[in-house]
């Protein structure tokens, strides 16, 4: 299977892949545009639409050293039925856990539409030999993961060993088989939007199905401008090759208001075709209850007590 993508008008990459014009990003203007889109005022039915969509896009996540099978089972139940009192609330897209708990999640979600996502490749640092990372991936898949969230080796990227980053993505993609591959750039460690753009291109050329901003372990995690930056890369790649790549914004998205801002950036950058969990995800945990609260508010005009929504 050929994972590398042939792109026209391209630069050669070590390892034989080809990228579109790397191009550059102007930080001031990028942040200005993101701030402008954040001011969109989404009301009434258009807001309800966004809140519902945001739930369907969530990768409900727990990535703690203290994670237990009990915690993951509770999260999996919440993922399938976010509001036990309201059958109209959709399930989330996936549950995201460590490989050691992928089997628990897989059993708990069996038969449902909710996918099992597992981080892998020595998450969150990615500082391990490639063989260890690949073993991590295989173990997660064997445990039933549908989606693999890998981290790139930021040390390699920042020291200029771009080819190594690319080779690792290719190797992980191969180990994934049919599983969906999300490549975490950890944008908070890359320093510039130019670097984010280049890393995105490397990941896409290596076979990423999704670009994911962050592990959630580094601050800043996802931001609106960095999301816009990645979406613009995805748009360029789609324009030049027709290849569809998805994106996951992860970390720091806690409120419905923020989620709607991300959806506005997505909508006005890539269009309505990207407004599906197949092409965009929100990695979050506490966001879900705020979405439920806001949906209830939109429907009834009243803010309910947070205790009406389950904590899992």
């Amino acid at each position: 299977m050929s994972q590398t993508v042939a792109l026209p008008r391209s630069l050669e990459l070590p390892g034989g892949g080809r990228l579109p014009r790397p191009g550059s990003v102007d930080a001031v203007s990028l942040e200005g545009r993101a701030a402008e889109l954040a001011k969109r005022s989404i009301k009434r039915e258009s807001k309800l639409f966004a809140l519902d969509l945001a739930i369907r896009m969530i990768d409900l996540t727990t990535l703690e050293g203290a994670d237990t099978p009990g915690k993951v089972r509770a999260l999996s139940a919440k993922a399938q039925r976010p509001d036990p009192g309201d059958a109209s609330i959709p399930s989330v897209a996936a549950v995201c856990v460590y490989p050691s708990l992928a089997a628990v999640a897989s059993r708990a979600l069996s038969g449902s539409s909710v996918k099992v996502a597992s981080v892998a490749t020595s998450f969150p640092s990615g500082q391990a030999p490639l063989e260890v990372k690949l073993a991590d991936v295989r173990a997660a898949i064997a445990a039933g993961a549908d989606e693999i969230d890998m981290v790139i080796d930021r040390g390699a990227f920042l020291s200029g060993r771009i080819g190594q980053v690319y080779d690792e993505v290719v190797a992980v993609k191969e180990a994934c088989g049919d599983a969906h591959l999300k490549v975490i750039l950890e944008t908070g460690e890359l320093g510039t939007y130019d670097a984010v753009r280049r890393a995105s291109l490397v990941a896409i050329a290596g076979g990423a199905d999704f670009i994911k901003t962050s592990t959630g372990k580094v601050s800043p995690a996802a931001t609106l401008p960095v999301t816009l930056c990645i979406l613009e890369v995805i748009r360029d790649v789609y324009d030049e090759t027709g290849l569809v790549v998805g994106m996951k914004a992860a970390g720091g998205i806690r409120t419905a208001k923020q989620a709607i801002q991300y959806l506005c950036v997505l909508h006005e950058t890539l269009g309505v075709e990207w407004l599906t969990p197949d092409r965009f995800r929100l990695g979050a945990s506490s966001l879900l209850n705020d979405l439920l609260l806001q949906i209830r508010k939109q429907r009834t005009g009243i803010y309910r007590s947070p205790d009406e929504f389950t904590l899992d």
Partner: protein
Amino acid sequence: MGAVEKQHTEVAAPAAWDYAPAPEAREIVSFERRYGLFIGGEQVSPRSRSWFPTISPSTEEPLAEVAQGGQKDVALAVDAAREAFRTWSRRKPSERAKVLFRIARILQERARELAVAESLDGGKPIKESRDVDLPLAAAHFFYYGGWADKLEYAFPGRRPRPLGVAAQIVPWNFPLLMLAWKIAPALACGNTVVLKPAETTPLTALLFADVCRQAEVPPGVVNIVTGDGSTGAYLVREKGIDKVAFTGSTEVGKAIQRELAGREVSLTLELGGKAANIVFDDCALDQAVEGIVNGIYFNQGHVCCAGSRLLVQESIHDQLVRKLKRRMATLRIGDPLDKNTDVGAINSSAQLERIAELVQSGVDEGAELYQPPCRLPEKGWWFAPTVFTNVAQSHRIAREEIFGPVLSVLTFRTPDEAVEKANNTMYGLSAGVWTEKGSRILWMADRLRSGVVWGNTFNRFDPSSPFGGYKESGFGREGGRHGLEPYLRFE
């Protein structure tokens, strides 16, 4: 591998996501049925006994009646300013500063009300009046308030003195902001003013009269005389003025200069433009597209420094135009009071006719027209965002100021050619350069004959930055320390 059943269901994207209307509350502003002239600190009925309605360009609904200032009215206003000058010019500079600071604070406090009034009367989107016009107007008063007691330091050893009565005529594209650009430096330097707002957008100036009352501006220091072009002509001819500051069309600017020939009245003119927005192939492309859109569709293109000529390096022409057209399709056109509106109404039917006529000339001369699919409201005056490709330097749409949401795309091959084409115009107000190379921005800025050169941005303003033109775009600078000089004489 565990025998786990996996479902692979594709989730279809929705057909559309329409944003529900999100209008700013209109109730925050209430207009009087009829406004008189603001002379000597009072609202007075015009001696001309004539009034005219001001109309909202987005709905064609009359908002209020305003006075048509006649010759007598203008003379009274100038007399009031003359009288007030005697005390205002001798006032302790730090006391003058206080008045300016008070105006700035009140503009901030009443920002929402004034922003709604501006969008109603002028047609510009609320997000622009709220985020650009009002904050900048207040910033100008804060900035020049700071200079009021430091003029000696601004011009060391030159003993600056106020001029006297300044006659100020402002256009309809940024009614309140242009008022601030004019009034703030004039008052800071110790002058008094008679300001004539544009015929189609007098309301925020009249609300500003109330701001002056609140800020305890002494009677006669600021006078506001509404009316049409004839009122402006009376004002310029009036004997008691010492200074004319005009922002508007090149045609009227020339007429004013002829009128003032041989008189001891100083003059600054800020006139039209046909700015080149120059895009090199190494630029940050998506951000350049944002800058191009901001350059020409900001305020419906009713901007004298609008980037109305896009000069794009030929090697990226197709890619850039493709990106630009897609971006244009996301522009939201409609109700100026809707917080999600990007492009509002054309200011007047006369302006709409002029835009339509020039666009037709572009089609007739063989340029290729593109407008994104968009539904324009039935009532009011609207024009879809427009881009012309295949434009030649000789086409009217590449030479004449359209003052509407119409962009002409031309190409160049080398930096030298870019400079040559950019300068090949009768105007010289502004230009934009988009490149990753800082040194090239400076190289271009040295060679471009325009008062403002923006690097990797466009239409960005700050009170501390001087603004003004070359050639038929006028002379004199507004903003910054430079903006004090036209309101001073030196002993």
